[in-house]
């Protein structure tokens, strides 16, 4: 399979649309939908004329990023680049979905540079917006909020992704063919570790102490009881309900006692 330039460019444009805060339906359309390798792989499959293969490869690439989280302005991995460029490379090289995960892994690590670049450069537009606020020019702030950062992000994301897909695919196919088992094993090990980062970042985002016992409980539900994840979620909701009732007892009783300032001190 060879990739035409228009196909590479179209993949690049979708990669832009998948960026957090692109003009594609906010964070839900971008970060939550297009940025997921499962969705990205399917889109690349459609562009390259084989959506089913794209979907299977995308599903495989999704695994290390299952609990990926973007929080507090930090995005330590780039599942989007792994999904779009990784699927394209894997389809051209004709590799198995398992090998596709390892091809995509370095991309997921490199892609964070794009995030850091636009998060840094966007500061310029905030300073311009400050000047507009001094003058009371709301329309200018609105313009500065959308167009300059988005045009910047468009070029920052489309150009590397397009070049990587168009020129990288054949080279990667050659490299994959020549790789011995140890480098592939190394990438597999890293791929197995990476979900831990997303999960730990999520746990940190919770920001409360005393969550570890609940975390270990969820772990045991799967490892020892082999429950499906949806069942765990329902049990989790029930546990959360009772735990909340116990740790914040009878708000009404406290309110009627007229002592609302010290309700947490017990």
């Amino acid at each position, binding site marked *: 399979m060879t990739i035409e330039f228009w196909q590479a460019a179209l993949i690049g444009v979708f990669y832009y649309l998948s960026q957090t805060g692109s003009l594609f339906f906010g964070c839900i359309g971008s970060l939550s939908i297009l940025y997921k390798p499962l969705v990205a792989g399917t889109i690349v499959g459609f562009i390259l004329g084989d959506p089913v293969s794209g979907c299977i490869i995308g599903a495989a690439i999704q695994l290390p990023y299952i609990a990926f989280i973007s929080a507090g302005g930090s995005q330590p991995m780039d599942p989007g680049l792994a999904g779009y460029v990784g699927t394209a490379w894997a389809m051209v090289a004709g590799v198995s979905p398992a090998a596709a995960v390892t091809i995509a892994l370095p991309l997921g690590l490199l892609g964070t540079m794009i995030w850091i670049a636009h998060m840094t450069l966007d500061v310029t537009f905030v300073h311009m917006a400050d000047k507009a606020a001094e003058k*009371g020019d709301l329309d200018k702030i*609105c313009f500065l909020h959308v167009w300059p950062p988005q045009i910047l992000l468009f070029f920052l994301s489309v150009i590397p992704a397009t070049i990587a897909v168009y020129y990288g695919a054949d080279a990667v196919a050659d490299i994959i063919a020549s790789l011995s088992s140890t480098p592939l094993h190394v990438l597999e090990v890293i791929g197995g570790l990476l979900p*831990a980062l997303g999960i730990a970042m999520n746990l940190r985002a919770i920001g409360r102490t005393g969550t570890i016992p609940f975390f270990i409980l969820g772990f045991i539900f799967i490892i020892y009881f082999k429950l499906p994840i949806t069942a765990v979620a329902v049990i989790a909701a029930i546990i959360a309900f009772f735990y909340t009732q116990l740790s914040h007892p009878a708000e009404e009783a406290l309110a009627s006692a007229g002592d609302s300032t010290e309700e947490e001190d017990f």
Partner: protein
Amino acid sequence: MIEQKSLSKKDLVIAYWRWILFSNCNYNYERLMATAVVFSFKNVFKKLYGDNKVEYKAALKRHMQFFNTEPHFGSIIHGIVLAMEEQRAQGKPVTDEAINGIKTGLMGPFAGIGDTLWQGTLTPILLAFGLSMGSQGNLMGPLVYSVLMACIMFPIGYMCFMKGYGLGREGIEKVLGGNQIKKVITGASCMGAVVLGALAAQFVTVSCPQTIQMGALSMGMQKEVFDKLFLGILPLGATLLTLYMLKNRQMKPTLVTGIMVLVGMVGGVFWIL
């Protein structure tokens, strides 16, 4: 005479969509979502302060402050703030400090709740569902995932926004006084932690392929030692260690990624992992 300037339902709906669709357009390291807040309140500012140049400028500067939260659950803050701005425009004594206090006081907790429920709980569950179909080449997998995500999150954002506006009108004391918000935080963090534990068990894979030779007896480290000790002890340990580095040692996620790559390389090359 003080003119009664009030916001219509339409003003609120416009502000909601301007926020939810453009919240991260100018996301940046210095003030994160600051310009997004001003952008989303455009029609509100014009209506409330359009005839008062001083207040108008003050409002723009007031909201150019650092702001960062999870956009969907956090939109409750926008609802509350809109109610406060409305009261201020009607001549009630709502100070800059009160408005900024609400924003900075609530953005952290709601980022916590929102990220836990959205990125930590809902997203992985829907993804696991989509993956079960997608990995078989069933295109319904990514489609169902995307449709469910949009159909759940947009209404949640809308409800939080309107709920916040209602709370803001009833009075800020009520928002901060009751332990409603604390209850929600406790419940969300508890549920999120259980689901994250399940995800760690399913998706973090660490194992030790080494075997130890003891005379004629060869012992597989994974099967004979680690699995006997506690099933999944390596993935659980790896996840908790990562949490320790992030939370207790305050390491940047990028640095932790670097450490993981290094550990993976060393462990992989020597076939320890």
